[in-house]
């Protein structure tokens, strides 16, 4: 199976879905001739033309709102937000509109929309090119939210999102774009929305997370296995909304010790809900308090290197937390 970059997996998913279905199109700032500021939509305009790879004016509420209209009309838009930090002007369109169209019309209308937005730091982007906006949208029923950590999942989840009849926020991690490469089959496949994935089997402690930090956990797990004989069980949520409750509980039961990790700041993050689900359903199976290792509760990460490093998770921080929990 070919090994490809995470960003290439995203590009391929769009490319294949646009070939497969004439209703699929991409829209966003600079997505056309330039192919996006990260190059994610490169080549799409050349192949599919300006009508299906639309350079949109610099106005995120319109990008979302126009895409919502087109989706209600039966198209399948993929709206790109240049950085997830810049999707907040579209919040009203996403929360008041996209999320509520099916419900408010009693199933008469629906909104098969995908909004792609790069999340995460570590690229010296500072306060407004590094954020994780998950918590803003997580509490809104009617939205689905996915956040892949691997190229395989990126491609399969994006395809599933495009085919989904409801609005899906697709949070791709910009640090993963060129850093993460893995095997991706040539054949068509989807990764089902709503299913978590066990990345590593283990019996000593369970790590639950999503997106980039899982790679730190995987590296740390290898070292802990080799050096300490500690075996971590690692669960990739992949879908944040709806959370895979069953998958979470299974992963917890395996070890009885849970560390939740994400880059988004701790308070009000996805980790809180994961922890609450566990505390509601598996309290008596726990051998240690539920730990969360997340970004600090500050508005965003600074651009200067020591500040950025201090903010972000990395292998060493995750490993230390894992070790501490394993020894608990």
């Amino acid at each position, binding site marked *: 199976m070919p090994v490809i970059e995470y960003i290439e997996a995203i590009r391929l998913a769009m490319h294949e879905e646009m070939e497969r279905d004439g209703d699929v199109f991409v829209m966003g700032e600079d997505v056309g001739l330039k192919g996006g500021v990260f190059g994610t939509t490169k080549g799409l305009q050349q192949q599919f033309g300006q009508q299906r790879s639309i350079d949109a004016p610099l106005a995120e509420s*319109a990008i*979302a*709102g126009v895409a*919502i209209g087109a989706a209600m009309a039966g*198209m399948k838009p993929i709206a790109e937000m240049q950085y997830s930090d810049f999707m907040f002007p579209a919040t009203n369109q996403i929360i008041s509109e996209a999320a509520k169209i099916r419900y*408010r019309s009693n199933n008469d209308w629906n909104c098969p929309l995908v909004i792609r937005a790069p999340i995460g730091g570590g690229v010296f982007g500072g306060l407004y090119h590094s954020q994780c906006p998950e918590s803003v949208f997580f509490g809104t029923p*009617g939205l689905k939210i996915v956040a892949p950590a691997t190229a395989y999942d990126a491609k399969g989840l994006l395809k599933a999102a495009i085919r989904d009849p409801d609005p899906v926020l697709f949070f791709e991690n910009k640090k993963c774009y060129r850093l993460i490469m893995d095997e991706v089959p040539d054949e068509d496949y989807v990764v089902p929305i709503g299913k978590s994935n066990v990345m590593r089997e283990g019996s000593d402690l369970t790590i639950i997370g999503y997106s980039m930090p899982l790679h730190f956990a995987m590296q740390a797990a290898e070292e802990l296995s080799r050096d300490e004989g500690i075996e971590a069980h690692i669960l990739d949520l992949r879908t944040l909304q709806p959370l895979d409750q069953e998958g979470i509980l299974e992963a917890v039961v395996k070890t009885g010790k849970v560390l939740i990790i994400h880059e988004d700041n701790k308070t009000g993050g996805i980790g809180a809900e994961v922890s609450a689900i566990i505390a509601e359903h598996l309290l008596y199976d726990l051998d240690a308090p539920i730990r969360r290792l997340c970004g600090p509760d500050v508005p965003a990460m600074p651009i200067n290197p020591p500040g950025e490093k201090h903010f972000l998770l990395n292998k060493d921080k995750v490993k230390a937390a894992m070790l501490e929990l394993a020894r608990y």
Partner: protein
Amino acid sequence: MKQAGSVQQKLRHSELGLSDERVISMYKTMMLARRFDERGQLLQRAGKVNFHVSGITQEPSQVAMGFAMDREKDWFLPYYRDYGFVLSLGMTVRDLLLSIFAKEEDPNSAGRQMPGHFGSKRLRIVTGSSPVTTQVPHATGFALAAKMRGEPSVAIVTFGDGSSNQGDFHEGCNFAGVHQLPVIFVCENNQYAISMRYEQQTRGRICDRALGYGFPGIRVDGNDPLEVYRVVKEARERAVAGQGPTLIEIMTYRVTAHSTSDNDLAYRTKEEVEFHKSKDALPVFRQYLTDAGLWSEEEEATLQSEIRSTIDEANEYAERAPFQSPEDSVRYVYAEEGN
């Protein structure tokens, strides 16, 4: 205006390409909207429903809009006062009463949303929400879809004067201008946004904003429904011909309180309201038909009694209809299996 020049006036609708039947039908629809609206107010006052929002005096132009469009091809994104508009698109008084009573059979939302929140895929009426102006970019999106598919559909969207100050107005118009999309933006300028007079909302003319997006902006007298018809029809023709969007500002006046929850005399005088009531286009339109030899006292009497029984029946039906069951009221957050 009513007596003199009636021979000339007789021709106005024909000149616009409206048959006698159509112009009569316009009048009937306006009257139906008016009577429905009055019933809504009555029901609220009688404590039968919690809330009513009125479009009285805005109906003539709303109906004119509806008649200027193509019900089979176009997309409609009305706002909450648009009873006249949606009635001209095929929604029935029964549908509207089911919505007022918030009953399951309400085609707009099964009684989930407030009245005035229209939506019916069958009628190509796009589901709307309460946060104002969000529908403007949606209309642009429908127009984009039509253009991409090569369909001769035009999207028409309405909103209030106050609502034109939301960012979504700007963004939705500008996008449509850049891509020359087949969409008509209609501001029903009734000179108030709840308690706030037009001058408190903006110092510009709303129609002038089109200039900044590179397409025509036209102000039209809402008390002249035939002129509204003409302007909308021309805008539609431009749109279909690939000449892009039009912004239309319909000058009208809100004679009722903002809604049944509002006391408008806290911020304006009875005299001001009475003045505008006296300019109501509905009797003027009837006079036009009469002068044109298309309408008589008898026909008026028949119409009124027909409307009354239609509304009475619908009222009774809607009042008796069941609510959506609590179990069903939490359905359709996402597609269900087999959807």
